[in-house]
């Protein structure tokens, strides 16, 4: 079956520091990876859409300078949250798009900023 692993599951970082999170697709080839952030109120924000060998497209209010993403192959992607502050807290989700249109999510990386 199609699985998406994210790690770490949760992390706490000091305000102003950075943290990196990883995403791995297992059992299928992810043609694209989208990073989302889910707020404590459970709303979803799309951060960026990444397709291997194509430019990463960031949504409004999110930038490469703040959320650099690496997507070197069809099974792995990573994203860093640079200079994290309180407003960056939430559940960061990696959604991997399979070849039959379905999008599978990992369990997420919960970021707490103190």
């Amino acid at each position, binding site marked *: 079956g199609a699985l998406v692993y994210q790690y770490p599951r949760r992390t706490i970082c000091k305000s102003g520091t950075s943290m990196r999170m990883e995403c791995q697709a297992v059992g299928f080839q992810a043609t694209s990876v989208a990073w*989302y952030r889910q707020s404590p109120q459970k709303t979803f924000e799309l951060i960026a*859409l990444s397709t291997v060998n194509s430019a990463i497209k960031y949504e409004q209010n999110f930038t490469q300078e703040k959320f650099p993403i690496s997507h070197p192959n069809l099974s792995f992607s990573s994203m860093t949250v640079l200079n994290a502050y309180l407003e960056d807290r939430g559940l960061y989700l990696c959604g991997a798009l*399979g070849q039959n249109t*379905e999008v599978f999510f990992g369990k997420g990386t919960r970021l707490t900023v103190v």
Partner: protein
Amino acid sequence: QQQVRQSPQSLTVWEGGTTVLTCSYEDSTFNYFPWYQQFPGEGPALLISILSVSDKKEDGRFTTFFNKREKKLSLHIIDSQPGDSATYFCAASHMGYKLTFGTGTSLLVDP
């Protein structure tokens, strides 16, 4: 602004009953509509999905209906179980790219 509206916000059903969740959308270019189930502290898990060329898809106790003309979709859960208690999200996109999520429905199945 692309929107997906979902209702109800919360719902309680008795064990064995049928749960019905509904969503509506605006963007006529959307052609892929997944439903996700999310438990506290977990990521959303794909439950069932439908493409706009279909009007019904069934998977066990879960059935999703799609009405292209009215831009509406629904999720039916028959024989609801306490283990189905979770938050359910509908979503919409063009071919899986850039999912737009509904606001979620918190479902409680009472034993």
